[in-house]
Structure formats: C-alpha cells, structure tokens
C-alpha cells in the first residue's frame, strides 16, 4: 500500500468516525444552533468521505448544500423554539425508550447486513473522471430522471411557498385558527411525558427534565 493510499484510508476512518460522533452530538447538545451545526459537521464528514472515495463533485455539493440548509435550520430553531438566541439547554423528548430501541434495532440490522453480505471488490478506477461521467449520465441516458428531479424541486418550491405564505387557498391563515390548548397538566402524547412547554405562550427559556 502506498503512502498516499494509506493517508486516504486513515482519513476515511477519521471522517467516518467523526460523522458518527457529530451525529450523536446532534441529540446530546443543549442548544439548537449547536445541534444544527453538529449535523452540518456530520454531513461535511460524509462529504469528505465521498470526496476520498472519488465522488468528488457530489461530496462538495453536499457540503455546499448543507452549509446553507443547516444555517437556515439554526435560524428556524431560534425563531420557533422560543429560546433566546438558542442558548438555553433543551431536552425535549418523548417515547424515549421506544426510540432508543428502534434506533439500536435499525443499526444492528443494517450493520449485520453490511458485515455479512458479500460484495465484489471493484474499486473506482483512479484514472477515471467521475464528475465528467456523472455529467454525461445526467444529460445522456438518465436525462429523464434528472429532469424529473428538477421538476420535483420546482414543484417543491412552489408548494413550499404556498404552504408557508400568509394567504393560503382558504384565505388568510390567521382567520378561524385556534392556538393549542393551554393546559400545563394535560398529558402530552402517548407516553404521557409531562411537557411544561405545552401551550402557545409558556415556552420560553430552557427546561430540564
């Protein structure tokens, strides 16, 4: 194994491990902004793995896309979670046990398949140009798929604006709507996890369970 290949391998492990750690921190950190940017870190790590595996264009596009999206996400969290500047601790979870079990089962099942299944060893030819090949694929044989993706995105944009806009199909969104019940003692969902955030106006600041 050459030096360069060894460096690339070590880098792949570091980025791969880093992406998992960052992903875990998304749900462990106590601030929404940090959560959003840990998620971005996870994406950047995966993007770097993609670059190292020769899918350079897609890896970089992933970073480009996610940097914007996670910043929007951070802004959204600060906006909607009634938490000044997103700096207060939070732990707003429900059905915690179920979720843990589901997560572990998903991981175990997928990892089992990954470890057991036999895959042929056919790495990418280092001399090939994956970006050019992707371009020719997108605008050649798979043009229809590419176009479909484009139209889907366009439809999404229009739909998203329609949903988020003030005036929807049924008139002004404010009219005839009701805030959620303000009843701090009401059971909150199937797990009956008491939620002091219940109600439209109570939710400022952080909370500790």
């Amino acid at each position, binding site marked *: 194994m050459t030096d360069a290949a060894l460096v690339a391998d070590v880098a792949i492990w570091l980025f791969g491990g880093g992406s998992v750690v960052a992903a875990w921190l998304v749900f462990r950190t106590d*601030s929404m*902004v*940090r959560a959003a*940017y840990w998620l*971005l870190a996870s994406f950047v790590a995966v*993007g770097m793995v993609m670059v190292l595996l020769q899918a*350079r*264009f897609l890896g*970089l*596009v992933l*970073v*480009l*896309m996610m*940097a*914007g999206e*996670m*910043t*929007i996400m*951070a*802004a959204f969290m600060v906006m909607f979670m009634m938490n000044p*500047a*997103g*700096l207060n601790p939070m732990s707003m979870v429900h059905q915690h046990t179920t979720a843990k079990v589901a997560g572990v089962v998903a991981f175990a099942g997928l990892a089992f398949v990954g470890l057991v299944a036999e895959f042929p060893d056919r790495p990418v030819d280092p001399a090939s*140009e994956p*970006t050019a090949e992707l371009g020719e694929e997108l605008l050649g044989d798979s043009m229809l798929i590419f176009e479909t993706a484009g139209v889907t995105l366009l439809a999404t944009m229009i739909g998203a604006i329609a949903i988020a806009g003030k005036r929807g199909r049924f008139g002004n969104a404010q009219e005839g709507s009701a805030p959620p019940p303000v009843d701090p003692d009401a059971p909150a969902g199937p797990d009956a996890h008491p939620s002091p955030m219940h109600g439209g106006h109570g939710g400022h600041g952080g909370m500790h369970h």
Partner: protein
Amino acid sequence: MNWSAPLPGVVLVGTVLVAGAYVASVLDAGAARLVAGRPLRVGELVAGPWREAALLARIRRSTTERPDAQTWALAPALLAAMAGVAVATVPLAPGVAVADVDDGIVLFGAAMAVVMVGAFLHGWSSNSVFPLVGGYRFVALALSYEMPLALVLIAAALPAQSLSVGAIVESQQGLWNVVRQPLGLPLFLVAGMGLAFWGPLGMSDGADLAGGTGVEASGPDRLAWALARHFVLVAVAVMGAAVFLGGWQGPGLPGALWMAIKTLVLLAVVVGVGHRVARIRLERFVVVAWAVLIPLALVDVFASGALAL
C-alpha cells in the same frame, strides 16, 4: 518545486493571503484618504497595517457574559481556512497551483458556503444582541447572492468544458471571460463583497450595528476577525482574477506577476466601491438579488452556453 506537497502548499497559500491582506488594507487606507481629501502619506500608509496589528495584539482580550468561547474562536479560523482552500484551487502561475483539482469551482463554492456558517457563528457565539443581529443579516444576504455566485461560476466553466480553475484559465487564452461574459465579473464581485462583508454589503458588521458581529471582540480577537475578513476578500479577488481576467496569462511579464496585477486591480475596485457606495438596505438588496441578479446570472449562463456551442 512540488507545490502540492503539504508544507510548500501551506506556505504558498499563507503567503498569498497575508500579502494580499496587507495590500488590501494599504489600498483601503489610501482610498479612504483620497476620498476624504486628505494628504496621502505613503510612509504612514505602508506602516499603518503593521502598527494597527501591533496595537490590537497589545490590547487585552475581553469577553462577554457566558459566550460560547470555542465557537467564538472557531469563527475566524473557519473563515481563514476556507479562504485558504479557495486560494489553493487557483493556479497562481503556469503550473503553480496547490490543488488545481478537477472540481475546483465547486470546491470554491463549498468553501464560500462555509464562510456563511463562520460569519453566523461569530455573531451568535458572543451571546450579545448586536452580534446576533449581524449574524442574521449575513445569512439573509448570503442566501440571496450564493445563487448568482454559483451561476456565474458555472457560466465561466462552460467554455472551458471543465470545473477546474486551471482549465478555466487556459480557456481564456484568446479572450478573457470578462469580455466573453460581461455579466459575470460584476455579479461575482457583488457576491464577493458580500462574502467579505465589505463596503455596501458590509451590513453584518455595519456602523449602524456599532460593528455587528464584531462588536464584542477586542484585541487579538478583533485582529483575528479583521484578518479573516481580509483573507476572504483576497480569496475572492484571486478567484475573480483567475476566472474572469485570464489568470496568469498576459503578454511580456511573467505569469505570477500578471496574476498579482490582476488581483490587485480587483482589490482596488472592491475597496474603491467600498468608500464610494453607501451601505445598502437589507430588504432592498434581497429583492434585487432575487428579482434582478439571479435572472441576470441565468442570462449569463444561457448566453455562455449558446456561445460555447
């Protein structure tokens, strides 16, 4: 010399950034004196940036109540690193590029998207009101000009039939992109000014916010932030010189010198505009960006595509 090796590469990129940042601040101070109608004292101009850096290094650090200290320190580092990545993709002279990768333009775009993260975090992490507002402003602006930026870079890549910056430079052998795609460079510079929050697009650190994301930074922190911002400006100018002004190509002089001259010209343009044009209104810029700049950038792409055919 193998510039792609780690050590020479870092040294080369670092030299370009530091030299560029120094020249940019001298130009900035010079332009300020010209516009203000004060005498140009060359000695003072040349020594000015060093003196100011020395002063900032001497001033004590201050902190706010309960900041996110790690993130606060990370923000300028992030900007500087991304500026370095951007410069690395550009061939500074024939055959002298640290990482002229075949997706150079995309790498530049990704690095500049991360600049947005850095600027937002700088505002957010100090746990203070005006910096946070500055951070929001940067995001609102950046989301508006990232799209035209990506489009004009794609348009520049079309004649080269490659996303590599080196190939784009070589594709301008007979005709520079600034002539071939007249819309490209102005749109690129608008986005570049936004990325370096310079001049009219310097809203995130504007005087109306008493300094915006940088309000709370003092001493070395302020120096780091100023440097990071200058680095981003240099990266934008270097990339603009390569992609729109033909890079190292030019008659007579050595390639590296041509590259330096062109970078200098772009820096001078940006700095000059910064002293002449008033800070824009956020609301108006967002409208203009989506209703005018993006359509213009699309025209640029379509025209370049038609020409390339």
